[in-house]
């Protein structure tokens, strides 16, 4: 067994992981820090984020206003101490990234430009045209090259966390190129591995978004918090699910039904105006817009296509110059993937799974209840997003909480003894498991792709934009059966060299865990709040459910759900008001 020892390990090389790695290196340059990622860092899904990143910068804005938008947007499920830390540190982090070379769009005088965004009352979304995530990720990745202590394990798939004596002390990782299993020991591990949109069939998420970190934390005893909250972004291209950024609406785009009518006015989201009004109409929050789509579709006012009903996103009135300057990627994506030019034609869009508000429960420093295990970014739930994340908060979140987790993990690692040698035996067990369950088995009958596809369909049917007791139970029964079938999975690829089928199987196992937890959490929350809409409990119930679901894996392997209180500091629960 090949064993390497570091002080701090990052699992995941997206925005949060790279920001955390730099924070570790800056907090204590004497520490050895390594980024372990199943893809080269610049392939990470941060790269796909488009519209922008929020931080207070304009004179008329305030931290309180950003906090209020975030908390009301989250339907009061956010932990308000986390939101306060978030808005307080957001601007500093964004300026830091500017100093690291991020090509933010500018005002004519050279200062940072901002744009409005959904659910935000004041313009505070910084942007780099409409490839914000791409530019942030590349700026971060390139900046890490300045720090010699930051090592990388590119294309290493982490298969489990090593926990001994109640403390996380490393991971087991499969080197994809060679099939070699390695123990990577460390004094602290930070999960920055993103969400798991691939639990669902139709998602903006990259193929790599399989919830690996969430599932491994859960298997290691850490609770998953608020997993029932899955964000559907209202504007994805049919068939591909490619995201058309909210910036298209922030710049003035309209959502129209089949009659060319701006239907959002019928859903308590305000009255139409030719130019965008903040916190109103097309700039309402994502959960409400996606729910409005479902109602419109049910009423027969959407446009049928072979890939489901769509409505139209119309940006033609913005004109070619504005489109090319502010949302050039929207045009590029439409031309390439939808064969239409948004300068001349309306864009067909439908809601698409985009983001998980829930994740590994952490404190404000990214620490999980498992000593030595930290988490930041989409994999974590701290929680600033509550029941519905506002667009442009997630890119900032990965900076603020990536940096926080990095600093905290560096301090923690500095005070720990070396990892226990007993862990190498656990890693050897893991190598044997991979051989026994996957590479070496000959009696399997089930295919990875079949189980994955059936799981995705079951999740969409059972835990989509609207759910109820019955739909959730039907999906849970199906997922349990798929879990049984997964035990008989057969790989056609027994090779050690770059075995992507093995990786897919391990990812599917993680996805099945996530599916189970999402369903159990959704069943337990017998109310409607934010992105979790129960047709059998259509009202928000603050008496019963102003609380976080916490899912822990029970002895029988099944999730156990408990409730934890929401931290309320300044803003008592109130009505979410948009457009009035």
């Amino acid at each position, binding site marked *: 067994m090949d064993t390497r020892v570091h002080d701090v390990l990052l699992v995941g090389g997206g925005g949060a992981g790279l920001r955390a790695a730099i924070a570790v290196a800056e907090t204590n340059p004497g520490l050895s820090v390594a980024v372990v990622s199943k*893809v*080269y860092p*610049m*392939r*990470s*899904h941060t*790269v*796909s984020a488009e519209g922008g990143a929020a931080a207070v910068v304009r004179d008329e804005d305030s931290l309180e206003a950003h906090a209020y938008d975030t908390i009301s947007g989250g339907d009061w499920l956010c932990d308000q101490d986390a939101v306060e830390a978030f808005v307080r540190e957001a601007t*500093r982090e964004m*300026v*830091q990234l*500017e*100093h*690291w*070379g991020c*090509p*933010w*769009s*500018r*005002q*004519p*005088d*050279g*200062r*940072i430009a901002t744009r409005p965004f959904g659910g935000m009352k004041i313009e505070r979304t910084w942007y780099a045209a409409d*490839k914000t995530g*791409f*530019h942030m990720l*590349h700026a971060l990745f*390139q*900046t890490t*090259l*300045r720090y010699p202590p930051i090592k990388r394990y*590119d294309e290493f798939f982490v298969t489990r966390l090593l926990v001994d004596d109640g403390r996380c002390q490393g991971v087991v990782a499969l080197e994809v*190129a060679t099939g070699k299993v390695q123990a990577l020991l460390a004094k602290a591990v930070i999960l920055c591995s993103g969400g798991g949109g691939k639990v669902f069939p139709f998602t903006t998420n*990259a*193929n*790599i978004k399989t919830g690996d970190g969430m599932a491994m934390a859960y298997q290691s005893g850490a609770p998953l918090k608020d997993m029932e909250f899955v964000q559907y972004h209202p504007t994805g291209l049919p*068939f*591909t699910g*490619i*995201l058309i950024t909210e910036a298209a609406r922030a710049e003035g785009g309209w959502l129209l039904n089949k009659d060319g009518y701006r239907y959002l006015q019928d859903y308590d989201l305000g009255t139409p105006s030719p130019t965008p009004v903040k916190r109103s109409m097309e700039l309402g929050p994502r959960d409400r817009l996606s729910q409005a789509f479902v109602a419109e579709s049910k009423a027969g006012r959407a446009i049928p296509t072979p890939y489901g009903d769509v409505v139209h996103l119309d940006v033609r009135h913005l004109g070619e110059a504005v489109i090319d300057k502010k949302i050039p990627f929207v045009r*590029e*994506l439409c031309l*390439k*993937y939808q064969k239409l030019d948004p300068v001349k034609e309306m864009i067909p869009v439908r809601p698409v799974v985009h983001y998980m508000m829930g994740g590994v429960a952490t404190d404000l420093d990214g620490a999980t209840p498992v000593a030595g295990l930290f988490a930041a970014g989409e994999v974590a739930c701290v929680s600033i997003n509550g029941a519905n994340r506002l667009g442009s908060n997630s890119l900032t979140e990965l900076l603020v909480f990536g940096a926080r987790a990095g600093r905290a993990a560096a301090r923690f690692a500095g005070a720990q003894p070396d990892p226990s040698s007993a862990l190498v035996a656990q890693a050897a067990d893991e190598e044997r498991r991979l051989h026994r369950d996957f590479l070496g088995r000959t009696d399997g009958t089930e*295919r*990875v*792709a079949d189980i994955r*596809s059936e799981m995705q369909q079951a999740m969409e049917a059972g835990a989509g934009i609207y759910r109820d007791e019955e739909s959730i139970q039907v999906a849970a029964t199906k997922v349990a059966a798929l879990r049984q079938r997964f035990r008989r999975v057969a*790989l*056609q*690829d027994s*090779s*050690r*060299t*770059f*075995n*992507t*089928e093995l990786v897919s199987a391990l990812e599917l196992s993680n996805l099945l865990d996530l599916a189970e937890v999402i369903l159990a959490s959704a069943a337990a929350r017998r109310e409607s709040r934010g992105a979790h809409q129960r047709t059998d409990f259509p009202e928000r119930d603050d008496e019963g459910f102003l609380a976080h679901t916490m899912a822990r894996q029970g002895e029988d392997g099944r999730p156990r759900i408990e409730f934890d209180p929401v931290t309320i500091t300044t803003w008592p629960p109130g009505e979410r008001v948009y457009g009035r």
Partner: protein
Amino acid sequence: MSDTVTMEVLRYRPEEETEPTYESFEVPVQPEWMILDGLNHIKDQLDGSLSYRWACRMGVCGSCGMLVNGRPVLTCATYMESLLPGPIRVEPLRGFPVIRDLVGDITDFMGKLAAVKPYIVREEEKPVEEGEYLQTPEELAEYKQYSMCINCMLCYSACPIYRIEPDFIGPAAIALAQRYNLDSRDEGAQERMDVLSQHAGIWGCTLVGECSEVCPKDVDPAGAIQRYKVSATVDFFKSVLMPWRKE
């Protein structure tokens, strides 16, 4: 019933065979399908052992570059329909050692990327508390194009120099160096110049522009190389004719 097309896919399994072979698959064609959808169909329905990289499926992560009918492309952004009636031949990018099937080893590229110091270099860094560096839209426009590189390496695969001169630092890395050289916040151009001039092959680049031709993001690495050559030449003559000007 949809039409089908034959996809001839390069297979190479180093544990089983010493030479690459081609394997043919009959794949349905749908109007929305890209080459990548065809490969996914093969992997999910026909042969789970086919290996290739992909992630975002929206042309921005840079993972899925391959040779399709001999031309380097992003497979997630190339319609199958555009290559009918076929057959469609899919191979790994030229210029990179093949690890397995359609997967190339990009270690060399990653080293070259890091070598050009692709980050802001400054004598003195302004404290974050003092806010952003001002940069006008015109100053941003100076380098913006070169900041759009997704590291897909199609340009390396198309580059005739890289094929015969593996030390050549290559189109994307030079474009990235220029991205920082032209950034008003950066002061590292001289350091990068020193790095670039140590690497072989730059002067061998004949500016045929194949790199810019295949670039899916219009980064124009050939233009970056041209600009670099001009500034390097000026730099050279300055150092010869006006040695006092060189720090």
